[in-house]
């Protein structure tokens, strides 16, 4: 008869509920992260809709105003239009956050006791080498970029 070592006999019973609990916790976390990804996608879509709506009205105003009015309002309308670029910047930041969450999900899945289908991170290696929008004060402004370009 094989010799029992230590408390091996009790281990499976103690391990299984612990493993199951860990698995449930990980599944809950993954569910929350997936939900967050959906929310981020919704933010991106909302920003796109809002920018599109503002742009459409600005275009309409610019087209319908007579020459005098258009000249007076042109600068303000063009500022409104360029401000709609927030959608691009918001979209890029959301994409970065989504890629980070994808990575967290993939790491969580890899750590689960039972093998689950891994989630592939969304960003390609090339795209992840790019930084996207920087933080105020931590990235170059237009004047600094102009100075770099002006150097021979």
């Amino acid at each position, binding site marked *: 008869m094989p010799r029992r070592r230590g408390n091996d006999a009790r281990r499976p019973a103690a391990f299984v509920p612990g493993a199951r609990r860990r698995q449930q916790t990980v599944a809950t976390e993954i569910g929350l992260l997936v939900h967050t990804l959906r929310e981020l996608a919704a933010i991106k879509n909302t920003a796109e809709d809002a920018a599109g709506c503002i742009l459409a009205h600005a275009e309409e105003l610019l087209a319908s105003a007579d020459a005098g009015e258009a000249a007076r309002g*042109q600068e303000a309308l*063009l500022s409104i239009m360029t401000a*709609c*670029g927030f*959608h691009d910047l918001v979209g*890029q930041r959301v994409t970065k956050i989504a890629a980070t969450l994808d990575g967290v999900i993939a790491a969580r899945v890899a750590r689960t006791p039972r093998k689950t289908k891994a989630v592939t991170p969304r960003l*390609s290696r090339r795209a992840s080498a790019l930084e996207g929008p*920087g933080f105020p004060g931590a990235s170059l402004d237009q004047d600094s*970029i102009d100075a770099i370009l002006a150097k021979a």
Partner: protein
Amino acid sequence: MSVEETMAVDLGMRVLVVDDYKTMIRIIRNLLKQLGFVNVDEASDGSAALNMMRSKDYGLVISDWNMEPMTGYELLREVRADDTLSRTPFIMVTAESKTDNVIAAKKAGVNNYIVKPFNAATLKSKIEAIFGEQSR
């Protein structure tokens, strides 16, 4: 606001705007219209832009950097390496504001570099700078 008032530029030339965000293309298209440019085409990434450039003549390319499958930087390099296209003026309009990226774009032959968010005056001044340089 037309650039015709400030410089001798052919407002009938074709301008290609490359960006994967429709909103940004629409913004740049509107700004170009206000500047007086009437022939504006669009592409959603570098490879689509390159195909268009090989089938039509463009007097100016305004491109984002971060796009898939071909980035604006890769497009710039392809354009500069192509004998037929190499002299096409190229403006990068991007959120990428790291010094290394600006230097890389400069080395690759970008004519000007605009960091997002930008305003109408910045786009106008960069176009004027390019065509001003060319006309000298």
